[in-house]
Protein backbone atom coordinates (compact mmCIF):
# COMPACT_ATOMS: atom_id res chain seq x y z
CA UNK A 1 0.00 0.00 0.00
CA UNK A 2 2.73 2.44 1.09
CA UNK A 3 4.70 1.35 -1.95
CA UNK A 4 1.85 2.03 -4.33
CA UNK A 5 1.34 5.47 -2.87
CA UNK A 6 5.01 6.25 -3.25
CA UNK A 7 5.06 5.02 -6.83
CA UNK A 8 2.03 7.13 -7.56
CA UNK A 9 3.61 10.25 -6.09
CA UNK A 10 6.78 9.63 -8.05
CA UNK A 11 4.87 9.01 -11.26
CA UNK A 12 2.92 12.23 -10.82
CA UNK A 13 6.06 14.19 -10.06
CA UNK A 14 7.73 12.80 -13.15
CA UNK A 15 4.72 13.43 -15.35
CA UNK A 16 4.55 17.04 -14.27
CA UNK A 17 8.30 17.43 -14.71
CA UNK A 18 7.92 16.14 -18.27
CA UNK A 19 4.92 18.37 -18.92
CA UNK A 20 6.97 21.26 -17.66
CA UNK A 21 9.87 20.40 -19.92
CA UNK A 22 7.42 20.13 -22.82
CA UNK A 23 6.09 23.58 -22.03
CA UNK A 24 9.65 25.01 -21.87
CA UNK A 25 10.46 23.60 -25.29
CA UNK A 26 7.04 24.81 -26.39
CA UNK A 27 7.85 28.31 -25.20
CA UNK A 28 10.97 28.37 -27.37
CA UNK A 29 9.12 27.01 -30.39
CA UNK A 30 6.38 29.55 -29.82
CA UNK A 31 8.87 32.41 -29.80
CA UNK A 32 10.46 31.25 -33.04
CA UNK A 33 7.40 30.30 -35.10
CA UNK A 34 4.30 31.87 -33.60
CA UNK A 35 5.09 35.30 -32.10
CA UNK A 36 5.43 36.82 -35.61
CA UNK A 37 1.61 36.74 -35.74
CA UNK A 38 0.38 35.88 -32.24
CA UNK A 39 2.65 38.41 -30.53
CA UNK A 40 5.51 38.38 -28.03
CA UNK A 41 2.88 38.22 -25.26
CA UNK A 42 0.69 35.66 -27.07
CA UNK A 43 -2.12 38.24 -27.14
CA UNK A 44 -2.72 37.99 -30.91
CA UNK A 45 -0.92 41.25 -31.66
CA UNK A 46 2.29 40.19 -33.43
CA UNK A 47 4.14 42.44 -35.89
CA UNK A 48 2.18 40.89 -38.77
CA UNK A 49 -1.23 41.31 -37.12
CA UNK A 50 -1.87 44.83 -38.43
CA UNK A 51 -1.46 43.44 -41.97
CA UNK A 52 -3.79 40.46 -41.55
CA UNK A 53 -7.43 40.52 -42.65
CA UNK A 54 -8.35 38.03 -39.88
CA UNK A 55 -6.85 38.67 -36.46
CA UNK A 56 -4.76 35.91 -34.89
CA UNK A 57 -6.30 34.20 -31.86
CA UNK A 58 -5.47 35.82 -28.50
CA UNK A 59 -3.85 32.86 -26.73
CA UNK A 60 -4.18 34.58 -23.36
CA UNK A 61 -7.98 34.68 -23.64
CA UNK A 62 -8.89 32.15 -20.95
CA UNK A 63 -12.55 31.77 -21.93
CA UNK A 64 -11.89 31.19 -25.67
CA UNK A 65 -8.93 28.91 -25.10
CA UNK A 66 -10.70 26.85 -22.45
CA UNK A 67 -13.44 26.16 -24.97
CA UNK A 68 -10.95 24.09 -26.98
CA UNK A 69 -9.64 20.63 -26.21
CA UNK A 70 -5.96 19.75 -26.52
CA UNK A 71 -6.88 17.77 -29.63
CA UNK A 72 -8.53 20.85 -31.18
CA UNK A 73 -5.37 22.87 -30.61
CA UNK A 74 -3.13 20.07 -31.87
CA UNK A 75 -5.16 19.86 -35.07
CA UNK A 76 -5.24 23.63 -35.64
CA UNK A 77 -1.44 23.84 -35.34
CA UNK A 78 -0.64 20.73 -37.31
CA UNK A 79 -3.22 21.00 -40.10
CA UNK A 80 -3.70 24.77 -40.18
CA UNK A 81 -6.71 27.11 -40.02
CA UNK A 82 -8.41 25.75 -43.13
CA UNK A 83 -8.66 22.24 -41.65
CA UNK A 84 -10.62 23.56 -38.64
CA UNK A 85 -12.84 25.95 -40.62
CA UNK A 86 -10.73 28.93 -39.73
CA UNK A 87 -8.70 31.36 -41.82
CA UNK A 88 -5.91 30.20 -44.19
CA UNK A 89 -3.81 32.87 -42.48
CA UNK A 90 -3.23 30.34 -39.71
CA UNK A 91 -0.67 28.09 -41.48
CA UNK A 92 -0.34 24.33 -41.28
CA UNK A 93 2.93 23.51 -39.51
CA UNK A 94 3.03 19.78 -40.10
CA UNK A 95 5.98 19.87 -42.49
CA UNK A 96 8.07 22.14 -40.26
CA UNK A 97 7.33 20.68 -36.82
CA UNK A 98 7.26 17.15 -35.43
CA UNK A 99 4.26 15.82 -33.50
CA UNK A 100 6.36 16.13 -30.38
CA UNK A 101 6.94 19.82 -31.14
CA UNK A 102 3.23 20.37 -31.66
CA UNK A 103 2.46 18.66 -28.33
CA UNK A 104 5.01 20.91 -26.63
CA UNK A 105 3.27 23.92 -28.18
CA UNK A 106 -0.11 22.74 -26.90
CA UNK A 107 1.38 22.38 -23.40
CA UNK A 108 2.73 25.91 -23.63
CA UNK A 109 -0.61 27.28 -24.89
CA UNK A 110 -2.21 25.80 -21.79
CA UNK A 111 0.19 27.82 -19.66
CA UNK A 112 -0.34 30.99 -21.66
CA UNK A 113 -4.11 30.87 -21.51
CA UNK A 114 -4.64 29.83 -17.98
CA UNK A 115 -1.77 30.50 -15.62
CA UNK A 116 -2.67 33.33 -13.34
Amino acid at each position, binding site marked *: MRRTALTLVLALACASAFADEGARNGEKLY*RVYCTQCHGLQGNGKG*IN*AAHLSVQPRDHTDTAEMSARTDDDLFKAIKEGGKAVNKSVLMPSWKANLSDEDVRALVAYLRELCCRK
Partner: protein
Amino acid sequence: MKSSANPFWTLLAALCVPLAAQAGAAEQAREQCAACHALDAPEPGTRNIDERLTRKAPPLYYAGNKFRREWLESWLRQPARIRPAGVFPPAHAKSTPQGDVIDESTLPAHVALPADEAAAMADFLMQLRPFDDRLAAVRYQPGTISLRMGQMNFSKFKGCDGCHRDAPDVGGVSGPELHSAWKRLQPQFIASFIADPTAWDPNTLMPRMELNDAEVARLADYLKALQEDGS
Protein backbone atom coordinates in the same frame (compact mmCIF):
# COMPACT_ATOMS: atom_id res chain seq x y z
CA MET B 1 60.06 46.83 -65.99
CA LYS B 2 60.96 44.68 -68.91
CA SER B 3 58.67 41.86 -67.88
CA SER B 4 55.42 43.79 -68.22
CA ALA B 5 56.09 44.31 -71.91
CA ASN B 6 56.63 40.60 -72.43
CA PRO B 7 53.43 39.04 -73.88
CA PHE B 8 53.82 36.03 -71.61
CA TRP B 9 53.68 38.14 -68.47
CA THR B 10 50.87 40.25 -69.83
CA LEU B 11 48.84 37.13 -70.46
CA LEU B 12 49.66 35.65 -67.09
CA ALA B 13 48.70 38.89 -65.37
CA ALA B 14 45.39 39.02 -67.26
CA LEU B 15 44.64 35.48 -66.11
CA CYS B 16 45.75 35.99 -62.57
CA VAL B 17 44.11 39.28 -61.68
CA PRO B 18 40.52 37.93 -61.61
CA LEU B 19 41.66 34.77 -59.85
CA ALA B 20 43.54 36.79 -57.28
CA ALA B 21 40.54 39.06 -56.79
CA GLN B 22 38.38 36.03 -56.15
CA ALA B 23 40.81 34.48 -53.72
CA GLY B 24 40.85 37.88 -52.05
CA ALA B 25 37.06 37.89 -51.89
CA ALA B 26 37.01 34.41 -50.36
CA GLU B 27 39.39 35.59 -47.69
CA GLN B 28 37.45 38.80 -47.17
CA ALA B 29 34.23 36.81 -46.79
CA ARG B 30 35.80 34.65 -44.07
CA GLU B 31 37.13 37.71 -42.30
CA GLN B 32 34.30 40.20 -42.68
CA CYS B 33 31.12 38.27 -43.40
CA ALA B 34 31.33 34.89 -41.66
CA ALA B 35 30.80 36.44 -38.23
CA CYS B 36 27.15 36.90 -39.22
CA HIS B 37 26.58 34.76 -42.34
CA ALA B 38 26.91 30.97 -42.68
CA LEU B 39 29.37 30.27 -45.51
CA ASP B 40 29.36 26.51 -44.91
CA ALA B 41 26.45 24.10 -45.06
CA PRO B 42 25.13 22.71 -41.77
CA GLU B 43 24.95 18.94 -41.32
CA PRO B 44 22.33 17.72 -43.80
CA GLY B 45 18.79 17.59 -42.44
CA THR B 46 19.60 18.95 -38.99
CA ARG B 47 16.88 20.88 -37.30
CA ASN B 48 18.24 23.13 -34.64
CA ILE B 49 15.92 25.65 -33.20
CA ASP B 50 18.68 27.36 -31.24
CA GLU B 51 20.46 28.14 -34.48
CA ARG B 52 17.35 29.94 -35.74
CA LEU B 53 16.86 31.75 -32.41
CA THR B 54 20.36 33.19 -32.54
CA ARG B 55 20.84 33.57 -36.31
CA LYS B 56 22.39 36.92 -37.20
CA ALA B 57 22.10 36.89 -40.97
CA PRO B 58 20.70 34.82 -43.86
CA PRO B 59 22.86 31.82 -44.85
CA LEU B 60 25.07 32.53 -47.89
CA TYR B 61 26.51 29.07 -48.52
CA TYR B 62 24.09 28.58 -51.42
CA ALA B 63 24.24 32.18 -52.69
CA GLY B 64 25.11 30.99 -56.22
CA ASN B 65 21.89 28.97 -56.34
CA LYS B 66 19.80 31.83 -55.03
CA PHE B 67 20.72 35.27 -56.33
CA ARG B 68 21.02 36.96 -59.66
CA ARG B 69 24.58 38.13 -60.02
CA GLU B 70 23.71 41.67 -61.23
CA TRP B 71 21.48 42.20 -58.20
CA LEU B 72 24.11 40.85 -55.83
CA GLU B 73 26.82 43.18 -57.06
CA SER B 74 24.62 46.27 -56.96
CA TRP B 75 23.15 45.40 -53.54
CA LEU B 76 26.60 44.89 -52.03
CA ARG B 77 27.50 48.41 -53.16
CA GLN B 78 24.23 49.90 -51.95
CA PRO B 79 22.44 47.57 -49.55
CA ALA B 80 18.75 48.29 -48.84
CA ARG B 81 16.55 46.56 -46.27
CA ILE B 82 15.04 43.27 -47.49
CA ARG B 83 13.56 41.94 -44.24
CA PRO B 84 11.49 44.71 -42.62
CA ALA B 85 11.84 43.10 -39.18
CA GLY B 86 15.34 41.66 -39.57
CA VAL B 87 16.52 38.08 -39.81
CA PHE B 88 14.97 36.92 -36.55
CA PRO B 89 11.86 39.11 -36.18
CA PRO B 90 11.07 38.38 -32.50
CA ALA B 91 14.46 39.88 -31.58
CA HIS B 92 13.52 43.14 -33.33
CA ALA B 93 9.95 43.47 -32.06
CA LYS B 94 8.70 45.23 -28.96
CA SER B 95 5.31 45.14 -27.30
CA THR B 96 3.20 48.28 -27.06
CA PRO B 97 -0.38 48.68 -25.83
CA GLN B 98 -1.49 48.77 -29.50
CA GLY B 99 0.36 45.56 -30.28
CA ASP B 100 3.92 44.58 -31.27
CA VAL B 101 5.91 46.95 -33.47
CA ILE B 102 9.32 46.73 -35.12
CA ASP B 103 12.07 48.29 -33.04
CA GLU B 104 13.98 50.11 -35.79
CA SER B 105 16.80 51.05 -33.42
CA THR B 106 17.87 47.37 -33.35
CA LEU B 107 18.26 47.17 -37.15
CA PRO B 108 21.60 48.67 -38.19
CA ALA B 109 22.47 49.42 -41.83
CA HIS B 110 24.36 46.68 -43.70
CA VAL B 111 28.06 47.13 -44.54
CA ALA B 112 28.54 48.48 -48.10
CA LEU B 113 31.46 47.47 -50.32
CA PRO B 114 33.36 49.65 -52.80
CA ALA B 115 32.70 48.82 -56.49
CA ASP B 116 35.74 46.60 -57.09
CA GLU B 117 35.23 44.58 -53.91
CA ALA B 118 31.50 44.20 -54.62
CA ALA B 119 32.23 42.76 -58.06
CA ALA B 120 34.82 40.31 -56.73
CA MET B 121 32.55 39.34 -53.83
CA ALA B 122 29.63 38.73 -56.21
CA ASP B 123 31.87 36.48 -58.32
CA PHE B 124 32.94 34.56 -55.25
CA LEU B 125 29.42 34.15 -53.84
CA MET B 126 28.03 33.02 -57.20
CA GLN B 127 30.40 30.05 -57.03
CA LEU B 128 28.71 28.71 -53.90
CA ARG B 129 26.30 26.30 -55.57
CA PRO B 130 25.79 23.11 -53.56
CA PHE B 131 22.21 22.70 -54.88
CA ASP B 132 22.63 22.71 -58.68
CA ASP B 133 20.91 19.31 -58.85
CA ARG B 134 17.91 20.48 -56.87
CA LEU B 135 17.42 23.45 -59.20
CA ALA B 136 17.91 21.33 -62.32
CA ALA B 137 14.97 19.17 -61.17
CA VAL B 138 12.59 22.16 -60.85
CA ARG B 139 9.88 22.07 -63.53
CA TYR B 140 9.01 25.76 -63.62
CA GLN B 141 8.58 27.65 -66.88
CA PRO B 142 8.02 31.36 -66.23
CA GLY B 143 4.61 32.43 -67.54
CA THR B 144 2.15 35.26 -67.14
CA ILE B 145 -0.66 36.01 -64.74
CA SER B 146 -2.69 39.20 -64.40
CA LEU B 147 -1.73 41.36 -61.44
CA ARG B 148 -5.28 41.22 -60.14
CA MET B 149 -5.54 37.42 -60.19
CA GLY B 150 -2.01 37.06 -58.90
CA GLN B 151 -2.66 39.40 -56.01
CA MET B 152 -5.86 37.66 -54.99
CA ASN B 153 -4.17 34.27 -55.12
CA PHE B 154 -1.14 35.49 -53.12
CA SER B 155 -3.29 36.97 -50.36
CA LYS B 156 -6.82 35.56 -50.10
CA PHE B 157 -6.19 32.01 -51.23
CA LYS B 158 -2.66 31.29 -50.12
CA GLY B 159 -2.11 33.69 -47.21
CA CYS B 160 1.42 34.67 -48.32
CA ASP B 161 0.65 38.29 -47.44
CA GLY B 162 0.50 37.28 -43.79
CA CYS B 163 4.31 37.46 -43.69
CA HIS B 164 5.41 39.06 -46.99
CA ARG B 165 5.00 42.46 -48.62
CA ASP B 166 4.06 42.43 -52.30
CA ALA B 167 4.24 46.25 -52.46
CA PRO B 168 6.39 48.58 -50.35
CA ASP B 169 3.71 49.12 -47.69
CA VAL B 170 1.37 46.18 -48.20
CA GLY B 171 1.62 42.87 -46.39
CA GLY B 172 3.23 41.20 -43.39
CA VAL B 173 6.71 42.05 -42.21
CA SER B 174 8.24 38.89 -40.75
CA GLY B 175 9.44 37.58 -44.13
CA PRO B 176 11.67 39.15 -46.81
CA GLU B 177 9.84 41.67 -49.03
CA LEU B 178 8.82 40.05 -52.30
CA HIS B 179 8.04 43.07 -54.49
CA SER B 180 11.63 43.00 -55.73
CA ALA B 181 12.06 39.22 -55.47
CA TRP B 182 12.14 38.66 -59.23
CA LYS B 183 15.00 41.12 -59.62
CA ARG B 184 16.86 39.59 -56.68
CA LEU B 185 16.35 35.85 -57.06
CA GLN B 186 16.75 33.19 -59.73
CA PRO B 187 13.34 32.02 -61.03
CA GLN B 188 14.08 28.34 -60.34
CA PHE B 189 15.09 29.19 -56.79
CA ILE B 190 11.82 31.05 -56.24
CA ALA B 191 9.81 28.06 -57.44
CA SER B 192 11.86 25.60 -55.42
CA PHE B 193 11.73 27.65 -52.20
CA ILE B 194 7.95 28.16 -52.44
CA ALA B 195 7.45 24.43 -53.03
CA ASP B 196 9.61 23.40 -50.07
CA PRO B 197 11.27 26.02 -47.88
CA THR B 198 12.34 23.35 -45.39
CA ALA B 199 14.59 21.71 -48.00
CA TRP B 200 16.59 24.94 -48.21
CA ASP B 201 16.47 25.65 -44.53
CA PRO B 202 15.25 23.08 -41.99
CA ASN B 203 14.86 25.90 -39.46
CA THR B 204 12.89 28.25 -41.68
CA LEU B 205 10.06 30.38 -40.27
CA MET B 206 8.13 29.85 -43.48
CA PRO B 207 5.55 27.06 -43.37
CA ARG B 208 5.81 24.44 -46.09
CA MET B 209 2.45 24.31 -47.77
CA GLU B 210 1.30 21.47 -49.94
CA LEU B 211 1.32 23.10 -53.36
CA ASN B 212 1.32 21.39 -56.75
CA ASP B 213 3.48 22.55 -59.68
CA ALA B 214 0.72 24.70 -61.15
CA GLU B 215 0.11 26.47 -57.83
CA VAL B 216 3.81 27.12 -57.36
CA ALA B 217 4.02 28.50 -60.91
CA ARG B 218 1.09 30.88 -60.33
CA LEU B 219 2.80 32.30 -57.25
CA ALA B 220 6.19 32.64 -58.95
CA ASP B 221 4.55 34.21 -62.03
CA TYR B 222 2.93 36.79 -59.75
CA LEU B 223 6.36 37.85 -58.45
CA LYS B 224 7.45 38.17 -62.06
CA ALA B 225 4.35 40.24 -62.91
CA LEU B 226 5.13 42.58 -60.01
CA GLN B 227 8.56 43.25 -61.47
CA GLU B 228 7.18 43.87 -64.93
CA ASP B 229 4.69 46.28 -63.41
CA GLY B 230 7.74 48.24 -62.28
CA SER B 231 6.85 48.33 -58.58
